[in-house]
């Protein structure tokens, strides 16, 4: 009788081992080498995974932690990782004071934006125009919208699909370099561009 119970317990153990955990989470380093964190909360004791290759296995009991190897990640997650889209890119282009004309440096930089868009099979582009604090707010709101529109027209002229571009003007509302009113600041005369 006791032997039968032991066998049953063993069978259950083997069955569980064969199935593996309900969920396995592995934190990976970002492209720039930094590492964020993931908390795993199974309703009992939340576990924090906050270093590269930190792994948590959710079994229904306590979350088991360990450090995974690169090879394990490649074997288990290779196909999911291979399907990863090109990551979004961020750019800033700067303008000549009180105009929607790019500075000569940003004129060169524009090319990088265009090339980044073109390497993507499908893309969405967001352009947000901004100004420094010289002039009144309403005027700057309009100027920032003009800057965003100028970049959109430029991209469209270069063959980027208009439907894939969205534009907005935010005037003085997002200063890269905080200043008081009526301060000329070249780093605030810009558009922020996200390509994804």
């Amino acid at each position, binding site marked *: 009788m006791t032997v039968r119970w032991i066998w049953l317990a063993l069978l259950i153990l083997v069955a569980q081992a064969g*199935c*593996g*955990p*309900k*969920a*396995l*989470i*592995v*934190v*990976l*380093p*970002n*492209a720039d080498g930094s*590492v*964020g*964190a*993931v*908390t*795993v*909360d*199974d*309703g009992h004791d939340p576990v924090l*995974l906050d270093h590269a290759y930190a792994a948590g296995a*959710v*079994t*229904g009991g306590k*979350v088991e932690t360990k450090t995974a190897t690169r090879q394990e*990640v490649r074997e*288990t*997650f*290779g*196909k*999911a*990782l*291979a*399907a*990863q*889209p*090109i*990551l*979004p890119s961020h750019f800033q282009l700067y303008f000549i004071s009180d105009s929607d004309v790019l500075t000569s440096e940003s004129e060169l930089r524009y090319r990088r934006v265009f090339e980044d868009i073109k390497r*993507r*099979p*499908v893309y*969405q582009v*967001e352009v947000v125009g901004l100004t420094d604090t010289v002039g009144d707010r309403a005027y700057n709101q309009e100027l920032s919208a003009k800057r965003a529109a100028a970049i959109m027209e430029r991209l469209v002229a270069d063959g980027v699909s208009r439907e894939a571009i969205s534009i*907005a003007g*935010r005037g003085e509302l997002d200063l890269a370099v905080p200043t008081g009113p009526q301060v000329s600041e070249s780093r605030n005369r810009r558009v922020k561009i*996200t390509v*994804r």
Partner: protein
Amino acid sequence: MRCVGRSLYEIAAGCFLGTLVVLSLEVPASAQSSPVAQVKTVSGAAVIVRGAQRLAARTGDPLFEKDTIETGKDGSIGITFIDNTVMSAGPNSELALEEYRFDSSNFNGAMLTDMRNGTLSVVSGDIARSSPGAMKIRTPKAILGVRGTKFVIKARGK
């Protein structure tokens, strides 16, 4: 009485018009809400489940809150959300976009995805940065909170 005498032709026409009304109601229903993500990569069998519809996923397709993505045994799919969160699923995967809201003017938002089965790679975006607890992923038997990172999940819910 007039309604008793209604011809089959009239009934058929009524049915046809009824179908048209239903169809025209359905199209704006999905167009009403704006897309929360876009399909960027597809390989093998990958399906978007939207209500009762099952649509073969294609590169460029928009995705909406409440959509579910499924991949077959040779399939994979990669998507990018409007807050720049990037996710890609390997074979035999099922991922539901349960809740999603994002305000691009202040980068605040919240998302909950349900990773029911398979493998998933995630690179978090603006929502995870906006506040602790803003980005959550449900897996079988656990909820994950994400703070600015790349990570992978294997889920065995089936």
